[in-house]
């Protein structure tokens, strides 16, 4: 068991290296010379060859490719992602740190909504399969998967904030600001997981162990909750866990709709400003989160399933 965990952790290292390499290559693929971009962004009036060479030396761009990669990687490990092109007085790490809490808050709230809504609804849909509730929910699920999140955001903003004047339209800072963006982010995940839990439960209902539980005369409640729900939750919790990084990256669009001061807003404004170091660090961050959460929930699944848990070791 310990050996497996160790192996699994080790196996992520090459992947992390590849991801970091791709991120590094990314910034080197920019059509224009980064030094030139930096100069232009700093609004240096006349860009001379010397000025470019100076900035290249300053940014360490004149060294060989692999040397630059390794030094960049070590800088990243130390938490130094370089300096913003747009605003040289700010570090990329500082910018990310400024925006990260808001995004985590939004993603966390969305995750709570996903779990609180999708599991009970999926459960009820499976229990009352083809009943009115199930049919209504299935129609809603179908419609929500076809709705672009930004449009949902606009509709909610208009209806809840403008028409009913219940919640603030945009911005961040308070709990009231959080509700609409969090719901918008979670909506598409909720519909995905309602479907997943419903199908998983229906699949489990066909299993022999359910027949045998019925044969032993166990009450329906026990069979549904203790056995079927727990078996289906098992798969679903892992799936939900692995989607946490997607949830974090999924906030990009919604943050922009609601002007939520998080990483997504930072990312889009960086794209418009061509502030490549910030985009690079953002992609790297999400990539690493992706790998880490996959690892974490894969291990969690292994530990929590007695069939996968190896004996003795």
């Amino acid at each position, binding site marked *: 068991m310990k050996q497996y965990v160790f192996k699994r952790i080790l196996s992520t290292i090459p992947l992390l290296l590849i991801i970091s390499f*791709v991120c590094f290559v990314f910034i080197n693929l920019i059509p224009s010379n980064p030094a030139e971009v930096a100069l232009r962004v700093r609004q240096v009036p006349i860009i001379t060859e010397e000025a470019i060479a100076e900035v290249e030396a300053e940014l360490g761009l004149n060294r060989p490719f692999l040397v630059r990669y390794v030094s960049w990687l070590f800088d990243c490990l130390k938490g130094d992602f370089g300096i913003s092109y747009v605003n040289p007085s700010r570090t990329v790490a500082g910018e990310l740190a400024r925006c990260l809490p808001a995004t985590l808050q939004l993603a966390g709230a969305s995750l709570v909504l996903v779990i609180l809504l999708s599991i009970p609804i999926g459960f009820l849909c499976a229990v009352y399969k083809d009943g009115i509730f199930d049919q209504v929910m299935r129609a809603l699920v179908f*419609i929500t998967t*076809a709705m672009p999140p930004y449009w949902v955001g606009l*509709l909610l903003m208009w209806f809840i904030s*403008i028409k009913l004047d219940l919640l603030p339209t945009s911005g961040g800072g308070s709990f009231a600001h959080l509700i609409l963006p969090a719901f918008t982010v979670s909506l598409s995940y909720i519909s995905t997981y309602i479907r997943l839990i419903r199908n998983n439960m229906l699949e489990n209902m066909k299993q022999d162990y359910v027949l045998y539980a019925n044969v032993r005369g166990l009450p329906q409640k026990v069979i549904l909750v203790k056995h079927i729900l727990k078996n289906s939750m098992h798969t679903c919790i892992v799936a939900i866990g692995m989607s946490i990084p997607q949830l974090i*990256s999924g906030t*990009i669009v919604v943050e922009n709709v609601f002007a939520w001061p998080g990483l997504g807003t930072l990312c889009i404004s960086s794209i*418009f400003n061509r502030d490549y170091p910030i*985009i690079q660090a953002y992609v790297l961050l999400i990539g690493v989160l992706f790998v880490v959460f996959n690892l974490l929930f894969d291990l969690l699944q292994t530990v929590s399933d007695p069939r996968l848990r190896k004996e003795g070791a």
Partner: protein
Amino acid sequence: MAQRFWKNKTAVGTVFFVVLIALLGILAPWIAPNDPYAADILHKYESMSAQFPLGTDHLGRCLLSRLLYGIRPTLGLAILTMLGTIGLGALMGLLAGYFRGWVEEIIMRVVDVMLSFPSQVMVFAVVALLGVSVQNVVLANVFIKWAWYARMIRTGVMQYRDKNFIQFSRCIGTPEWFILARHLLPSIAADLAVLASLDVGWAIINISTLSFLGLGVQAPTPEWGAMLNEAKNVLTSNPSQMVIPGVAIVALVSVFNLMGDALRDVLDPKEVVE
């Protein structure tokens, strides 16, 4: 197969609907009542009338005409993206599944790396890298999605490649390319058709999202996402502006999703309950 298709009302209905929408888009210059770019500030925010069947927007442009012209970028780019994704994905998947060995090894490692990035972020990264433009949006969407298809198609090919008729074909000395084109491709065509229709729905949402954020199709062009971007600015004063393009997107995406499910029923004989 054709018979099963005509029997399946959802399949026929959705395909008909998509063809109709595509025709409306192609014929937009002849059927649109007004010029989609003709601004007329005096007639802004008009409600439905004979001259403007769906009313006008904040610049007094005819909404119906913009909607009809908007089919071209919205549906056209999505279909282009789908063709690109499926093309690249199928090619890679076929190569990996069929040849095995180091070809497969390399392709699948690349696929693994591609899949370890969240697609949402990759789109933005690619658009950031290549610059904001329509081609780049299509490229970005193809780039992030092909790996999914490569993996699915490879699995499909692996299942078929050991089937007897393929083995037989190889035994009697049929050239490899012939086996690939003649036997494997039709075998996985069913999977591809289903994927393709689901993928168009996904691409419509994704491309319109980029346009909405200002990273895709740019402002005066009547793309549905871009129309919503313009509608966003007048959300407080004229909320009804966002209804029509939004409903259009939801309807079109729903139809593609329905079509995917229906095609699965049509193409997969095992699923059919007589």
